[in-house]
């Protein structure tokens, strides 16, 4: 037994902390890598399913309803329509933006399924279903969907 003893606690032990840390190295699959390279060039390029002809943005390696691989790349527009949205008003762990902000499902022109993104340059109360919005690009060359900083009302804020 140890001679010195610095432990003076007498209350029962009821819990302990268990720190875990796992480091991963992730490589973007080819379909995602293509999309992100296009994003760097300020282009939104989706993929079309060879069976149902639906266009997905971000592109999908496999059509989720037809289970076939999608190879054909399709240039989408930089504007779209708000399918639906919510206003995030609470802070939470892991959050990137300062609330309140509008999180919307946007159907980009030339695509068939909505993209989840942020709507900016407009008061949350002013956002409506069916509103037309356009991409505002970030100046930084981010190889992620954050290259589009947010979407704003088409033609800029009135």
């Amino acid at each position: 037994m140890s001679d010195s003893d610095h432990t003076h606690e007498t209350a029962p032990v009821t819990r302990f902390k268990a720190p875990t840390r796992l480091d991963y190295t992730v490589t973007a699959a080819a379909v995602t890598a293509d999309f992100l390279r296009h994003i760097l060039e300020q282009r939104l390029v989706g993929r079309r399913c060879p069976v149902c002809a639906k266009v997905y943005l971000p592109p999908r390696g496999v059509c989720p309803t037809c289970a076939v691989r999608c190879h054909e790349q399709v240039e989408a527009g930089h504007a779209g329509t708000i399918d639906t949205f919510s206003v995030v008003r609470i802070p939470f762990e892991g959050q990137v933006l300062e609330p309140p902000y509008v999180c919307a499902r946007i159907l980009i022109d030339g695509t068939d399924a909505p993209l989840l993104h942020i709507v900016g340059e407009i008061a949350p109360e002013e956002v409506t279903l069916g509103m037309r919005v356009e991409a505002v690009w970030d100046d930084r060359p981010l190889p992620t969907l954050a290259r589009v900083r947010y979407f704003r009302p088409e033609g800029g804020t009135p």
Partner: protein
Amino acid sequence: MDQPALTSRFTLAYAYKRSLGPVIGAFMTGLRDRRILGARTADGRVIVPARAYDPASGEPTGDLVEVGPSGVIETVSHVAQPSPTDPVQVPFAWALIRLDGADTSFLHVVEGSAEALHRGLRVTARWRAERDGSLRDIEAFVP
């Protein structure tokens, strides 16, 4: 692919909080107080570490019983080069130790060279000076 792959590092890290309940809590409290506790099963065996249930049957256990802190190595696997996450940073072994008074063996580490450690060797717990109620309150077992 003729273009370079996009590769990114990603870390999943979190400090989970484990609440212990009465029996695991008593065991950890015991370690902090330099005591190793087992639990007596319905058929009279003493299992270590103490748990609220018999691992073999799931049935509740009864009294807590102090065991060790010395015992005998039952099985040993030697590690010549400790990794930074290992409990000790000198040559050591992972060992199943039958503590005095226990009917099951207890997994911990034993310090020593491969030549020095073997089945049947008597070892005893060396306690950490700063203890907080976890298995690492036992720094290692030593011959």
